[in-house]
């Protein structure tokens, strides 16, 4: 039996794999997407769907901003069930120290052309009356938004299919490399390039890459239309999310179009099981209650967990994997995969087609990772 032949086989039908498939298909490549489960079933299903510009580093800013603009361009084509809403993010400052961070962040964004608005304590209380009284203020980033990731991934996949891409879901893969993808049932696909976009599971297919699972919990409430208007994130988030070694929680809530409130976030290393961890869930909800006391009486209808694909320097791996010339990586997006999926697809397709990229691609090349070490081990 001869193997099916493709120019590019993408491992993973999450939002990153979907975006890569679409961009490659646009470059007239013969594309197949293979996933062991369903479209958007991994971190894509578990994540919040926050389209957010971040400024941990210049490279992170460049990627998130570029990708956000790609989402904005795509917006007119997005079907209704993708629920794209440009609600804006408010970075909430609890005290003067965090308010100083608001000003720093504001000038950083302003210098780079990102529209922002500094909110006084009064502005914040008016915009989000359910926040606890006495907040110092906040920063509203108006072009940030939210969407519903599984449907966004499905939309990208469908667009790729319309350009001829093949999608194989429910197809576990045993091994990739040397231009071949061997499925668990023994059958094979042959590919010029294999793109590992398997998120937190990418290291199972490509041994030795600097990606670790970082577990998160989310809770969703029943419908309370108007309870919040913006994605609200505490600025203390910077302190907790940046720690690469310890478990952390942060106040991070999102308004869904249904009127539901999506509540996060938690970050855990070394947690391999998808079961709900009551201890960190409790800490996460306590944090949410501290910021938003009226949340305590809302009805929580579901809790779930997921695994982010984390890298030591908090930047994704996009590009060739040095140890096998047929393998490219598109993983390690941690909590920003929904935002940065479209830019990832572009950067990957640029590299495969020899086209110039709109932003520098070097910061995301896997080759940089040879010097990276996970701080925690």
């Amino acid at each position, binding site marked *: 039996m001869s193997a099916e032949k493709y120019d590019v086989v993408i491992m993973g039908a999450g939002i990153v794999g979907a975006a890569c498939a679409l961009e490659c298909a646009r470059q007239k490549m013969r594309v197949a997407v293979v996933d062991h489960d369903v479209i958007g079933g991994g971190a894509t299903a578990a994540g919040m769907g926050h389209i957010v510009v971040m400024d941990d580093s210049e490279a992170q800013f460049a990627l998130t901003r570029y990708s956000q603009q790609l989402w904005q361009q795509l917006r007119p084509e997005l079907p209704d069930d993708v629920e794209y809403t440009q609600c804006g993010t408010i970075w909430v400052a609890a005290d003067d120290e965090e308010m100083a961070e608001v000003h720093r962040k504001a000038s950083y964004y302003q210098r780079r052309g990102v529209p922002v608005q500094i909110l006084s304590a009064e502005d914040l209380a008016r915009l989000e009356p359910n926040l606890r009284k006495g907040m110092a203020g906040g920063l509203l980033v108006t072009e940030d938004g939210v969407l519903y990731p599984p449907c966004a991934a499905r939309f990208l996949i469908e667009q790729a299919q319309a350009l001829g891409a093949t999608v194989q879901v*429910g197809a576990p893969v045993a091994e990739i490399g040397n231009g071949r993808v061997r499925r668990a049932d023994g059958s094979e696909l042959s590919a010029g390039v294999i793109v590992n976009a398997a998120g937190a599971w990418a290291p199972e297919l490509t041994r030795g890459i600097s990606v670790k699972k970082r577990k998160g919990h989310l809770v969703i409430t*029943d419908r309370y239309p108007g309870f919040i208007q913006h994605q609200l994130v505490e600025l203390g988030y910077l302190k907790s999310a940046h720690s690469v070694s310890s478990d952390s929680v942060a106040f991070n809530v999102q308004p869904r179009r249904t009127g539901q409130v999506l509540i996060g976030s938690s970050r855990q290393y070394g947690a391999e099981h998808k079961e709900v961890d*009551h201890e960190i869930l409790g800490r996460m909800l306590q944090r*949410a209650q501290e910021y938003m006391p009226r949340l*305590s009486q809302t009805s929580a*209808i579901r809790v779930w967990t997921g695994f982010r694909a984390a890298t030591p320097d908090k930047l994704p791996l996009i590009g060739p994997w040095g140890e096998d010339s047929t393998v490219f990586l598109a993983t390690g997006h941690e909590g920003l995969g929904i935002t940065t999926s479209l830019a990832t697809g572009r950067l990957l397709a640029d590299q495969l087609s020899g086209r110039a990229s709109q932003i520098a691609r070097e910061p995301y090349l896997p080759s940089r990772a040879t010097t990276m070490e996970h701080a925690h081990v």
Partner: protein
Amino acid sequence: MVSARKQFDVLIVGGGPAGIAAAVSAAQSGKRVGIVDDNPALGGQIWRGETAQSNSEAAAWLAKLHAWDVEVCAGTRVFDQPVSGVLRAESGDGTYQIEYGKLILATGARERFLPFPGWTLQNVMGAGALQALVKSGLPVSGKRVAIAGTGPLLLAVAAYLKNDGAKVVAIYEQVSRTALAKFALKVAAQRGKLAQALWLRKELRDIPLITNAWPVAARGNGVVESVVLCRGGKHEEIACDYLACGFHLVPNTELAVLLGCRLQNGYVQVDDFQQTSQPNVFCAGEPTGIGGVELSLIEGQIAGLVAIGKEGEAQSLFSARRKMRSFAEALDRTFALRPELKSLASTGTIVCRCEDVKYGQMTQHRSWRAAKLHTRCGMGPCQGRVCGPATQFLLGWTPESVRPPIFPVALENLISETHEEKEHTFVM
């Protein structure tokens, strides 16, 4: 929010016949026995609101229960097990952290609904749900009620509603007359109380029982005005004020699954002593197989006795249970859903009422999980309790794993005490 701690040697979840029998049996030992139920009073779905006049058997069991020192936590719903041996429950006035030595799950069953065009109209409801509403005061006197679906519950509901003054138009049962007659013979041979309760009741004598018939649509302007039935290959339309539907029962296995108990064919797997695959966790009644009150009472007694170490006494009930289980198997066989029912829903029929998801949206997906992610079916407050069993029948989908909370709860109640303690110690 008040949070209280409780400790029991034997804790029973579910206050229907199985739970009551388990509590009575376990209480004889003098051990601390508690029973938790989410309804305001004991009795479960089947014995809800029964009195000594209306149901002497129910009254007798409740009297036995009250004679013992059993702590009853009514209006209390178990939603999580934060650590092994500890359940968390929510009531109107706070939460409980309940520690147990032995746990008996007697969580009962719920009605299965199948979607058909018009099933979301007002006054189309579950047969058991309509009965419960009438028990709590809904007047049905003079109202025309059509009853359709399958299973013995339809007969019980018909009798009850008629007694309450409703004009029961007919009972439409999807199984064939022959299958029903065979089943009736088996029931009669058992000389069980179920036979008396259902088949020999005077109330049913002048209600037409129409077999080989099932609802294909409910019609009305906001409120149901008529039901269209498929009968002998032809459609007929019957006017009604209420349409009570039920397609037999599905077991409530969510808590068992959360605790890690193994299922077999959709039921909680138990050994001869009603022991589940989890240590110290027993299960009795409908979750182990739909068998009705009699079997539930026996299983409850066995579980209660085993939980207090009286295996020998429990064994004396095995032969009675064996007989009743053969009845349960006959129930499953007789009231199995006919394949025609799989085509009742049209593409525009809502299947998930919480999230307004239509059948045509669901059939574009290949699994429950894919459909859930892409259409939101099963993501609402009922957590898929209605559309899950429906799609299991319609599309052969298997539901997902169970996660806490197994019922929606006030957000603050998800912050478990084990965590609070830890925090406290940490701060000190």
